[in-house]
């Protein structure tokens, strides 16, 4: 019984280890989305700021 548990534990551990290098690829989509949102915010801010300066 304890041998089974040990085996399950080992399998769980070994399953979680290969997931680590995958995080690099998992973050790429998030990174692109965050940067796209950031670029949108910067462009909108600049557009409003330039409009404000031009109308001064």
């Amino acid at each position, binding site marked *: 019984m304890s041998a089974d548990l040990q085996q399950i534990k080992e399998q769980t551990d070994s399953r979680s280890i290969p997931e680590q290098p995958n995080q690099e690829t998992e973050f790429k989509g998030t990174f692109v989305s*965050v940067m796209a949102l*950031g670029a949108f915010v910067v462009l909108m801010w600049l557009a409003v700021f330039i409009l404000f300066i031009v*109308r001064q």
Partner: protein
Amino acid sequence: MHIHRLEKIWLTFGLAMLFVFLGILGISAFAMGAQPPSPHRHMIDPTRVQETAPFDAPGIKQVADGEYEAVMIAYAFGYSPNKMEVPAGSTVHFTITSPDVIHGFEIPGTNVNMMVIPGEVSQISHKFTKPGEYLILCNEYCGTGHEYMNTVIVVK
């Protein structure tokens, strides 16, 4: 704590953006004197506007070369004085208050846009470089005649 490389990049980007925005705001406020139209505590009794100087004689007058001061009252539903004229290239300092409810003061196409609050004196300046007829209108709903509330400043 482990922070992923990409997370570090976007956290740095976000923080830098915040500092740049706040920095520009801080420089324009503290070094260049940008301020909201009612930053000072300039109180007036709203029930005695017509007897209180300078609002006992609303109008526009020249205060310096190329500078005018427009003393105005925003009331339901209009502005006093009703029509103003300045030469092109003049800077007009608007000083305005309300004897009744909250009104708006906007000149479309310019940065002039402020609230006129009873008991407060709002001030804003604008340089009119191009000749034309500039509409001044109320953009705060003030009652049934709100849409008729306007005046003009003619720049020649």
